């Protein structure tokens, strides 16, 4: 919570100095192509039965998520999207390599999850058995589903086999977020679940006291669960052993990154109805909570955790969305990493404070100028003209009212609640931000939820997939003009986990340094590509590329500009023919 004058000065003055380095004439632009591309998935929130149906549907209006990965290793990232209402299928869209996709949900066997007692809430690709094929985890209010990626019976494609029963992931929780990361650097990907409600099945509600006990400091949520990968296809709950069990907040998102540069992945928990939590990794399988010293205790409605070095100072920063509506102006948090175990919130100073009812937010260098831009989705419920807020406030201001009781909450009916909100795209100008969503063509007013960033056509410009609640999703194809040069890396671990999650890439170009880490699902309801993308502005070559693998191995490699480079841990670079041909064919510079 430290505020330093010098930091403010840097934040304010930096844009002036840094403009000289940026791609001056670039203009961030996107085209919405979801229908043409065949990925216009319509999500439906779960409908409940009985007197509490309306309120519970409102409280569980997430579940519209996206996870991106190249599940068939053909060099193009594919898209998995979730649905939430009973019986509705999740979808897997295979990337055809030409900005069209084919729905392969049924033949790959991944549609299940929304049964009468479970609600799909999120999804995650990760190679849990290091066999070189990403597997799929479907997260639920319920127990998760784990699918193993295998050749299809006809040998022509891939198929997913449900291995949940043997996975040990059998603990009921109202899980709403998950990341895959290797918290103990043993070369196997572990899982961190963020659980929203306490572990009570909302679909067979026995006790109506399931809602927050305090709307600013709730402690009756689901906390988190840390699952350690045993290396035999099963996972063990190590939450207590790791020191994470005391957290009982309403975890809405979880994020990871090596915030203190010690080679181990740390975690940030964004919590609704109260205090976010930051834990540093002790390197011995346990975590220590550093919330008080590092960020202080907040009372905000944490919705999203995104990690990136927005100011190119070599330290990972954290962006958290909150609720910044007219009636609840909390301000988001952009935690600038001070490098000494503390963070300073610079959301106001950088212009990223206000995004209304925030959900997912993702960093990405959309114009390849070397600075991470930021896209934020928002909007809770767009319905009729009547506003739910006055109705709600009448309830919450009633003396002695028990917030935990579902029956005390008024029905929302056809009322809107923070709906019809315009999305926000912040262009990074040397460490400060300008909001340009309308100019960039991404100022839609849907009820946004999840985001995934990927380069679906391998052209070096990042694209965006946006999921929405009870509405169709959007695919924004990046068509920025005058964009800079770029590099992309597909990392494959050998001693480290195969997905290389947690690997850090440092690029030096034109006298500047950039860092990225391979992330395992940061950001609410959205997993971006595990490929690492760098914009390097006008630089036509890089001075150095260094990879620090989770195993501890540090490698220096050569990488050509404007290409996707594949790197295998300990074996240097590879340029798979398909990648090169396709990236050239896509018109890379």
């Amino acid at each position, binding site marked *: 919570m430290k505020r330093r004058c010098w930091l403010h000065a840097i934040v304010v003055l930096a844009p002036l100095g840094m403009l000289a380095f940026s791609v001056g004439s670039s203009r961030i632009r996107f085209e919405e192509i979801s229908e043409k591309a065949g990925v216009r998935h319509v999500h439906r929130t779960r409908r409940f039965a009985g007197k509490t149906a309306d309120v519970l549907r409102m409280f569980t209006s997430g579940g519209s998520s996206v996870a991106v990965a190249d599940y068939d290793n053909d060099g193009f990232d594919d898209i998995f999207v979730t649905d939430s209402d009973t019986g509705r299928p999740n979808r897997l869209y295979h990337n055809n390599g030409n900005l069209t996709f084919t729905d392969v949900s049924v033949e790959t066997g991944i549609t299940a999850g929304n049964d009468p007692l479970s609600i799909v809430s999120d999804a995650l690709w990760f190679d849990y058995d290091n066999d070189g094929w990403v597997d799929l985890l479907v997260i639920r209010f319920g127990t998760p589903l784990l699918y193993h990626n295998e050749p299809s019976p006809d040998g022509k494609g891939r198929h997913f086999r449900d291995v949940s029963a043997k996975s040990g992931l059998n603990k009921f929780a109202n899980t709403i977020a998950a990341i895959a990361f290797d918290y103990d650097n043993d070369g196997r990907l572990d899982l961190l679940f963020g659980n929203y409600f306490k572990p009570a099945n909302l679909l067979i509600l026995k006790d109506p006291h399931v809602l927050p006990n305090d709307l*600013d400091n709730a402690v009756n949520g689901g906390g988190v669960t840390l699952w350690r990968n045993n290396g035999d296809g099963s996972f063990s709950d190590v939450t207590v052993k790791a020191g994470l069990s005391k957290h009982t907040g309403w975890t809405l998102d979880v994020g990871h990154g090596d915030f203190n540069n010690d080679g181990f992945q740390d975690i940030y928990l964004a919590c609704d109805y109260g205090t976010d939590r930051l834990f540093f990794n002790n390197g011995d399988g346990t975590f220590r909570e550093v919330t008080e010293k590092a960020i202080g205790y907040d009372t905000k409605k944490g919705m999203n955790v995104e990690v990136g070095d927005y100011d190119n100072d070599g330290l990972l920063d954290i962006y958290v969305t909150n609720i910044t509506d007219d009636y609840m102006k909390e301000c988001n948090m952009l935690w600038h990493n001070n490098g000494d175990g503390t963070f300073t919130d610079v959301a106001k100073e950088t212009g990223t404070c206000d995004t209304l009812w925030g959900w997912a937010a993702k960093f990405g260098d959309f114009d390849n100028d070397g600075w991470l831009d930021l896209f934020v989705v928002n909007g809770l419920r767009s319905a009729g003209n009547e506003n739910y807020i006055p109705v709600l406030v009448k309830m919450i201001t009633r*003396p002695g009212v028990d917030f935990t009781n579902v029956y005390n909450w008024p029905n929302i009916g056809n009322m809107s609640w923070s709906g019809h909100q315009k999305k926000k795209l912040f262009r990074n100008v040397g460490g400060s931000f300008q909001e340009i969503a309308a100019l960039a063509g991404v100022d839609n007013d849907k009820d946004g939820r999840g985001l995934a960033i990927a380069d679906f056509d391998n052209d070096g410009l990042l694209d965006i997939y946006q999921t929405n609640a009870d509405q169709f999703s959007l695919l924004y194809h990046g068509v920025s003009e005058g964009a800079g040069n770029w590099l992309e890396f597909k990392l494959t671990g050998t001693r480290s986990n195969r997905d290389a999650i947690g690997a850090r890439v440092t690029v030096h170009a034109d006298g500047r340094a950039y860092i990225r880490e391979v992330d395992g699902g940061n950001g609410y309801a959205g997993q971006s590509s595990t490929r690492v993308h760098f914009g390097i502005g006008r630089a036509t070559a890089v001075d150095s590329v260094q990879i620090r693998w989770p195993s501890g191995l540090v490698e220096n490699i050569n990488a050509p500009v404007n290409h996707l480079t594949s790197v295998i841990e300990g074996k240097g670079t590879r340029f798979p023919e398909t990648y090169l041909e396709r990236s050239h064919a896509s018109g890379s510079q």
Partner: protein
Amino acid sequence: MLRSLPFLLATALFAVEPGADVHYNEAVKALNSRDFQTALEELEVVLASEPDNIRYGSEYRQAAIQAGAYERCLNFFDKLVKVHPNAPNAWLNYGFAYVDKIPAAGSITQVILANAALREFTRALRLKPSWIAYYTRGNSYLFWPKVFHRAHLGVADLERAVRLQRNEPEHAYHARAWVSLGDGYWKMDRLQKAKAVWREGLEQFPDNPLLKERLEKDGTDLKGAIEAALDPYKRVDTNLQELWANQ
């Protein structure tokens, strides 16, 4: 300092002590030396003797703000009004105690506190429809975002405050009601009426900088000035010393 809080409250609330002046003087001394705990204890004794004293209540709250003792302050006034339910200024200060806690609370608790403040201001008004009570409640309504449609309630109260102040000797603080009344009309999207109110106020208080500022600004500048004044996330100055200053 050695006395326990329950004992102190019992002393303060139920055994009305003579010599409140002595305690008040001790409180002033403690405030001057920034010994807020002692100041709170002494002022609690004083208020128990004079619950309707608006000045003592205000000074007690300011000491509580300095000490961060928001809950203690609320608990004290809660007990005070139970013992003295017909003391309008005790209710008024009770309402202000809720307002004082708002900056230290989370965003939803802020709404609950703000609403509770309105409730206590209303009780004060029922007992005594004074200028300060109408001004206070009216101004409080204006802090609520538009979605709650409370601006018209604020305007009604502030109109009454302006009428009441005409019957009182003129004070500089009366200009506040003109400023707020205009802000209320602005929030109701009645800009011309707002300007007329500010102009009328300026005729009475030609040196008031806030009235001048409102009349000099337009559009987003005016919006910025009003929104800055009605920002619920900034600490509202609830120190009432202007009421007795220079008297």
